[in-house]
């Protein structure tokens, strides 16, 4: 997971107000709500990112340890991959 690059699915749209947001997956016709951390991660995934890069973005944004950030980012990625909100970016 550390060297694999991930990105948002092309059919995903998101918007937010006040640190909460909603994600639409147009292709799957599903929607999800997002908290502030999820918005940060999915925002970063507009471009292909590795797990360590996502961890770094959380550490920059919030006062968390690298261990906490990795746990959060890993769980978020797994959920997003399962829902096809995030896909593995082809090189």
């Amino acid at each position, binding site marked *: 997971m550390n060297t694999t690059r991930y990105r948002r699915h092309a*059919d995903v*749209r*998101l*918007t*937010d*107000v*006040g*640190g*909460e*947001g*909603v994600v*639409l997956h*147009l292709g799957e*016709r599903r*929607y*999800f*709500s997002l908290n502030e951390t999820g918005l940060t991660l999915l925002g970063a995934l507009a471009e292909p990112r590795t797990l360590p890069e996502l961890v770094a973005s959380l550490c920059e944004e919030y006062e968390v340890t690298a261990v906490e950030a990795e746990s959060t980012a890993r769980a978020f990625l797994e959920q997003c991959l399962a829902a096809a909100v995030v896909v593995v970016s082809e090189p």
Partner: protein
Amino acid sequence: MSLSGLATGAAADTESLAAIRQWLADGRLPLPDDFRLSVARVPNAASLPPSAGPRIYETSELDVRASGDGGLHIWWRSSGAFAAVAPDRPEVALTLTAEAAARGVDLFRLFLMNVLILTLKRSGLYHLHAASARDPDGRDWLLAGDSCCGKSTTAAYLASRGWGVGTDDMTFLHASGEVCRALAWHGRIALRPGGQALLQAAGGVVIPERGKLGFLPEELGGHWVQTITPSYLLFPELGAERTWLEPVSAGAVLSRIVPWTFWVLFETRGADEYLEVLKRLATQTTAYRLHLGPDLFERPSAFAELLP
């Protein structure tokens, strides 16, 4: 706006066109100047285009698919009708079978309203399943939710308290400058027997296809209001012991409101623009969950006492 009974490759259907013209006039929705609608008649469903293209969504009645040019193709499954919606302008070509044309009110309720919603999206009018109202102080309200959440009963209640009411469920959001406005499709507030009893409402018109009784706002003591600029957004819910308001954050509004408009969203074209409209609505309104209890109808002042 242009309505035409002519279409290439099929016979004109002037009779259906007249009925559609009257339906649109009754709805009192300000249609865009470039709105175009044509109607053609074919003998049977075999004469309609076969279902094809990537599916946008489907219901038991409708099959909605992307056409190759960025528009939509919509089939009414149960009665044989077809609509071709243009990609980037509010223009639709209808083809009706004799069976569909004979379905009367169902043609409008089950097929044409959905076609209209997806056509008007092309000009920035986005459907939201919500009631609209204006209080006696001139503040504007939206009440969003499904058909069993108490939205219509609350709209009727507000009309009975002298409020303006635009609609009990057919609202079209529209970005106007920096604000989001809501336009109402004019129709009767449809009450189930339970709602009629709570309001002690007399009169009304039977809506047999919905099993409800319909009231105009003015028949309940209110008045009709077409366009509002919502300052408050309510999400009604039934089943509370007493009526109360629970604040909802602006961010949570987004995920709460999507279910009541989501089928307009799941077409790639226009999705970003519509999300921006929803964001404006979430930003400009103060939102609450409205927990509805029986005291709303027992004490005439109950709702007024809750208002901010």
